[in-house]
């Protein structure tokens, strides 16, 4: 009898993320879906708040990338008060953002991607985890922990706390960086860069040894989107939004505040998470990917030397065309990690970083403001509409994981069809399906604005009867 396989979370508060795999009578996969079952309510919660509260409230959406929400929100507020923030404030915000990227990307590699890469898809799950890595290579594990800690130290030195910052305010930031704190961070930065380079070596070695898998695993033909500098370089804090098609041709280069002219959101009845797409190509032709792979595919260069060297290698993977394999997200993420560390060093060495010219005031309140930033997982958009007193009357947030929604669902189907045998199901098969999702490092609490813990369930369902044959629950 045909079956359905669902991977679903067990959770106490928030909704579920679930993978459902429909299997036919021969044990072959017919189709598969990645669902998110919790709706997002944060926009509604924001209504009635003052605009200047948003940079403090919105980081509560997510315990993993609160700084990204904090800064996107502050940028939206800058637009509301029509502030051109002082250069030192911009440098300080960018430095904080680099801290966020370092801690997030480093953690992903160590905690989520690393176990598969080091032990293999089919390794015993009892060792295929962080503790397994610690046992196998304690030196590497300690470096990963220190990297994450370093990223958080950057945030803490600026904001006084490392998780939910209260630092960026409309028009700038509320605190300067001391010489002592700058020097402490600088004293560690070269060590951190070397740690990331070790991670890159490890990833490249894995890619080389698993070339066949990398070239067939979750390979999708999509557009790509990300911020770029005026010269087309990788940009994480500011810049213009660049969209390219599957062949790398430029589709659009636009100011983030105009995102509604270019991005639509498709709704499917089987997921609460919407599916953004490029309006001019329509749904589903206009689907695109964001995050590390998307950003490196849209960028023409990286403006820091070590990351640029790796970038050249990345670009050579597909002869200059967009790199399509989902597993390359891991490599791209580490290249960005290296860029973030190098960029942090540049920022710390900039004399303006110590300036006390950190706030612009205007006395204006415009009816709306948009803030766009490259969060670790991709383009993050905060859009607020306010009344003449600055009270939020409407808010719209598009988060990185949402942009990748189609790719995750389609990728799950592609991987399931390639690797899952419903008649001889193994843990390793399901781990590959989960591994596709891990490539994108989704932040489901972000995308659904849920509480933060988002485990998963896999359901196996009969294509012919709709009966759930089996279920695998993961905390």
């Amino acid at each position, binding site marked *: 009898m045909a079956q359905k396989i669902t*991977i679903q*979370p067990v959770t106490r508060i928030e909704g579920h993320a679930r993978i459902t795999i429909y299997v036919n009578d021969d044990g072959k996969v017919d189709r598969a879906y990645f669902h998110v079952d919790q709706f997002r*309510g944060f926009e509604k919660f924001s209504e009635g708040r003052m605009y200047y509260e948003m940079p403090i409230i919105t980081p509560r959406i997510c315990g993993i990338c609160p700084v990204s929400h904090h800064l996107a929100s502050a940028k939206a507020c800058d637009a509301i008060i029509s502030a051109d923030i002082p250069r030192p404030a911009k440098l300080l915000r960018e430095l904080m953002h680099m801290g966020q990227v370092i801690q997030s990307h480093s953690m992903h590699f160590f905690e*989520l991607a690393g176990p598969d890469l080091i032990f293999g898809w089919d390794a015993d799950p009892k060792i295929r*985890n*962080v503790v397994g890595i*610690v046992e196998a290579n304690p030196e590497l594990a300690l470096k990963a922990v220190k990297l994450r800690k370093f990223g958080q130290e950057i945030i803490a030195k600026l904001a006084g706390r490392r998780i939910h910052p209260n630092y960026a305010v409309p028009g700038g930031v509320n605190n300067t960086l001391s010489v002592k704190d700058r020097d402490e961070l600088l004293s560690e930065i070269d060590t951190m860069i070397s740690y990331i380079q070790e991670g890159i070596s490890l990833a490249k070695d894995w890619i080389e040894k698993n070339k066949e898998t990398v070239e067939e695993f979750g390979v999708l033909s999509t557009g790509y989107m990300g911020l770029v500098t005026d010269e087309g370089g990788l940009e994480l804090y500011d810049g213009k939004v660049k969209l390219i098609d599957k062949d790398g041709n430029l589709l659009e280069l636009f100011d983030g505040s105009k995102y509604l002219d270019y991005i639509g959101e498709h709704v499917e009845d089987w997921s609460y998470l919407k599916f953004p797409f490029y309006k001019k190509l329509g749904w589903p032709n206009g689907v695109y990917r964001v995050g590390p792979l998307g950003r490196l595919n849209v960028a023409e260069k990286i403006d820091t030397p070590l990351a640029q060297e790796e970038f050249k290698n990345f670009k050579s993977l597909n002869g200059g065309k967009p790199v399509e394999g989902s597993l390359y997200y891991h490599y791209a993420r580490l290249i960005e990690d290296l860029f973030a560390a190098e960029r942090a060093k540049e920022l710390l060495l900039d004399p303006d970083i110590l300036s006390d010219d950190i706030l612009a005031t205007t006395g204006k309140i415009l009816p709306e403001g948009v803030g766009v930033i490259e969060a670790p997982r991709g383009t993050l958009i905060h859009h607020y509409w306010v009344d003449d007193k600055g009270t939020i009357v409407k808010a719209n947030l598009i988060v990185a994981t949402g942009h990748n929604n189609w790719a995750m669902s389609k990728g799950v189907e592609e991987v399931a069809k390639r690797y899952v045998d419903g008649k001889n199901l193994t843990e390793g098969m399901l781990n590959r399906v989960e591994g596709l999702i891990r490539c994108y490092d989704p932040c489901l609490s972000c995308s659904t604005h849920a509480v*933060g813990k988002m*485990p*998963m369930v896999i359901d196996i369902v009969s294509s012919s009867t709709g009966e759930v044959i089996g279920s695998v629950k993961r905390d």
Partner: protein
Amino acid sequence: MEASKETNILVIGYGNPARCDDGVGEYVAKRLLSEDIGIDILTLQELGPELCEDISGCELIFFVDAGIEQEEPFLIREITPKYKTPIFSHHITPEMLLAITEELYKTKPKSYLVSIKGYNFDFGFELTETARQNSEKAIEKIKEICMNWQLQKR
């Protein structure tokens, strides 16, 4: 809020204060800090592996979180290192954190998980009155354990 290194007792209150009763962990940690009983606190939305360095030097740790399935106002139980593989959640459990700490730093602080019953997890910054009362009961128990611990250490 960050832990100092002044004492060897750490209370980690975690959860999301923007989701009403999910903020009980932070509430308890801050209340205990205000009582000046010789503890350090950390308040976080989620636990992460980097915390292993923070806790490696502690002797006694309380992980305080919201609970939903229990009947009791609060539950407290000693926990030991135990690792489960996350698939793509960024959340790790206290037991997982202790396991990483034990492996990396070869320390195993005595640890309790304090689960405080919550009722409302919608968006909002206010605890329900019942959750607040539950938190106060948990605070008394934590203080009692801390006092006994400190007496034993003398």
